């Protein structure tokens, strides 16, 4: 059997709508048999902080408000993708170091903290989406 196609997503935005879209695409791709890596870097880590998520103090517009009211939140989408397919979520090591954050500060969706070199190894020969 052929190797599963790979999809790697670079998420660098803290806007809830983009975080939701990346999480949705990642989880549906995983549920469709793709091997998915989601690399969360820079400001995109902010919505994943427990303190942000608990207060729902996301950077968002009208769309984000509706998404929160009506749909599963991005972390639930990611949990579903992990349960039903191959989806790994990685936090950017540089961004974590610069801000002094540890895994304890975040919602429990991250599989590991990695650097750019490791990310490119994971992404090699697959498709890369940037959001």
């Amino acid at each position, binding site marked *: 059997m052929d190797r599963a196609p790979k999809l790697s997503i670079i998420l660098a935005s803290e806007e809830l709508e983009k975080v939701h879209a990346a999480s*949705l695409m990642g*989880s*549906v791709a995983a*549920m*469709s*048999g793709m091997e998915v890596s989601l690399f969360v870097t820079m400001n995109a880590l902010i919505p994943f902080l427990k303190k942000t998520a608990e207060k729902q103090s996301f950077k968002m517009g009208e769309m984000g408000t509706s998404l929160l009211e*009506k*749909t*599963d939140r991005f972390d639930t*989408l990611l949990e*579903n993708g992990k349960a*039903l397919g191959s989806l790994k979520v990685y936090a950017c090591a540089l961004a974590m170091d610069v801000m002094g954050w540890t895994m304890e500060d975040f919602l429990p969706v991250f599989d590991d903290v990695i650097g750019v070199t490791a990310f490119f190894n994971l992404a090699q020969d697959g498709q890369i989406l940037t959001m």
Partner: protein
Amino acid sequence: MIKKTIDARGSYCPGPLMELIKAMRAAAVGDVIEVWSNDAGSAKDIPEWVNKMKHTLVHVQETDGFYKIAVEKTHP
């Protein structure tokens, strides 16, 4: 014919697809699962998933403002 029906009305994309996938995992080859959804996006996306995963789309019916999408599990 329909072995299991899932009522996913009120759930937005990708909720109905996810419910279908969970049921397909538990089903036996040859079983037909029907998912109900009032989400137009899911009515378009579920058949795409079925084709991609090489299962069989039995029907997509629109009745009383919602969709009934039936899928046969054709392989493990």
